[in-house]
């Protein structure tokens, strides 16, 4: 099932939580809805779920306009941040609950609940109540409950944020697996860019109610439409060097770039930390301020001119403060933004 938003707007009194969003969620794929807290992503999710009513604009499931439909008629499964399991029911009762709403015969409901429990690997926990389960286990029950009625769309609202780091990684994989196995169109809300990148087939990024960009993770990372997206994706974050275009050229901490026909103007140049290369012949010398060694790679804090930048290198070399390194840049790795943050294409 495709989900399409058309000029969707949601206002809460004076605040516009979602502003004129138009976007399509791919059928059978997992779309990450990403953005900082308060950007309107959860609101968008609740609009899709039908828990909020749109101020204007439309929501389509395939070609069906569901904008005015009640949530229970939309055929969706929703997993909440706090899982929202019913505390007085066992895991099994929780999973069966939606089926009972649909008046599915008890026998069948139980069978489907068991199947679902198997899918999310909690078969042995069915008689426990939420209070007796760990966060990860509750999460699985919540997913099972959302999926048991075979929804057309699965919506996940920051489902991993209440888990500790290790469990989060594990559950991330689980969600991916379950989504693949079921093939259900899934929308996953998160504020964690890494999570979104690793799990999503497609990412929609939002800020202050406005949809910024919709693209595959790679495309979005490599080719952000604006400075916000560029900054939001990537860890460590992109280096932003404030400089200006002068005579068709820009100088960012010593790295030069032709800007073609772009007029002279102050700009922000974004360079991803991993775009640097240690290069004995490198055109630019940087002065090391500090370094962090993570085992897989090394992160240098180094001055490019006056700008302290983060530089990721793969080499297993120990640097000291004050060491000088020469760097070069990978092809096309400089991103130009104007002062409004819009991408300037060369």
């Amino acid at each position, binding site marked *: 099932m495709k989900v399409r938003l058309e000029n969707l707007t949601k206002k809460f009194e004076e605040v516009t939580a979602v502003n004129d969003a138009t976007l399509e969620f791919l059928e059978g794929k997992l779309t990450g809805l990403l953005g900082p807290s308060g950007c309107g992503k959860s609101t968008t999710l*609740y609009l899709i*779920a*039908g*828990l909020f009513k749109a101020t204007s604009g439309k929501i389509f499931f395939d070609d069906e306009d569901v904008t005015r439909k*009640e*949530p*229970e*008629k939309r055929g*969706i*499964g*929703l997993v*909440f*941040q*706090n899982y*929202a399991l*019913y*505390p*007085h029911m066992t895991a099994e009762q929780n999973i069966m*609950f*939606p089926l009972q*709403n*649909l008046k599915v015969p008890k026998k069948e409901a139980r069978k489907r609940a068991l199947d679902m429990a198997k899918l999310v690997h909690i078969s042995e926990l069915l008689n426990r109540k939420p209070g007796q389960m760990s966060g990860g286990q509750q999460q699985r029950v919540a997913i099972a*409950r*959302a999926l048991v*009625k075979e929804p057309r769309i699965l919506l996940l609202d920051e489902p991993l944020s209440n888990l500790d780091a290790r469990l989060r990684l594990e559950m991330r994989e689980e969600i991916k697996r379950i989504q693949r196995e079921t093939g259900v169109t899934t929308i996953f809300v998160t504020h964690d860019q890494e999570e979104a990148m690793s799990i999503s087939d497609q990412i929609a990024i939002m800020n202050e109610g406005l949809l910024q960009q919709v693209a595959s993770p790679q495309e979005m990372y490599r080719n952000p439409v604006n400075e916000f997206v560029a900054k939001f994706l990537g860890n460590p974050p992109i280096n932003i060097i404030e400089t200006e275009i002068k005579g068709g050229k820009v100088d960012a901490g010593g790295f030069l770039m032709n800007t073609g026909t772009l007029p002279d103007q102050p700009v922000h140049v974004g360079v991803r930390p991993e775009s640097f290369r240690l290069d004995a012949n490198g055109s630019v010398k940087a002065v090391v301020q500090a370094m962090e060694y993570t085992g897989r790679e090394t992160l240098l804090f180094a001055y490019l001119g006056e700008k302290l930048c983060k530089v990721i290198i793969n080499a297993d070399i120990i640097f000291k403060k004050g060491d000088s390194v020469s760097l070069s840049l990978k092809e096309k790795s400089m991103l130009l933004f104007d002062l409004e943050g819009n991408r300037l294409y060369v």
Partner: protein
Amino acid sequence: MKNVYKIITYILLAAGAVIMLFPFFWMITGSLKTYNQITATPIVWWPVPAQWNNYTTALEYAPFDIYFINTVIVSVGTTVSVLITSIFAAFAFSRLKFRGRDTIFSILLSTLMIPSQILIITNYVTVAVRMQLMDTLLALIIPFTASIFYIYLLREFFNQIPEQLYLAAKVDGTSDWRYLWKIMVPNAKNALITIGLFNFIASWNAYIWPLLLTNSESKRVLSIGLKYFSGEAGTDYELLMAAGTIVIAPLLVIYLFFRRYIVEGVARSGIKG
């Protein structure tokens, strides 16, 4: 130092407990005294021999057995209805969004400030004259089938049930009705038991309304029985205390049985204020 604290705590608590319980002690021992022993100096702490016949005498004054059954019916009737109406109203106030919600709620809350004594004359006309329910147990129940105070308490409790459960249930295709009974009510069990007990106790002790609306002995309740012992020139204290003990004894049993829920229920309902 730690032990000193402990000892002081025990002493203070014990002293407090004595203060809290002394009136009960006085009432129960008083019910076993002779009329003159109650006011005797020096104080008669424990009457020997105990006048158990005060109880038999008190019970002869009025048909307490019928009163007891009626009191149970009325208390259970009002309690069940108060719970139902409070559940509905508290649900609406805590979960449903509707126009005028806050206004209606404030108006209801402000009515808590009216001294109820001045309402009964009008209510008599409503129940006895308009509804023609004079001398029925129903008349003792109907005006007390809803209580703003308990709606307020229950709303506080419902508000503490995470709203996400409601949203989850909506998405799961649960109707409001089903959500209320399958999710809210089971989760508010303790609060409901507490409110039920509060109401039960209040209903058990209600006096003036049951008196106004009944004429037959077969429709009267226990608290009216307490009135038999006061005359215009004196009171049969020993009998009154015996009757008083008889009236509160069932409450005592119920209380000890449900004690755990009361403490928890009050706790929850008080938490958010």
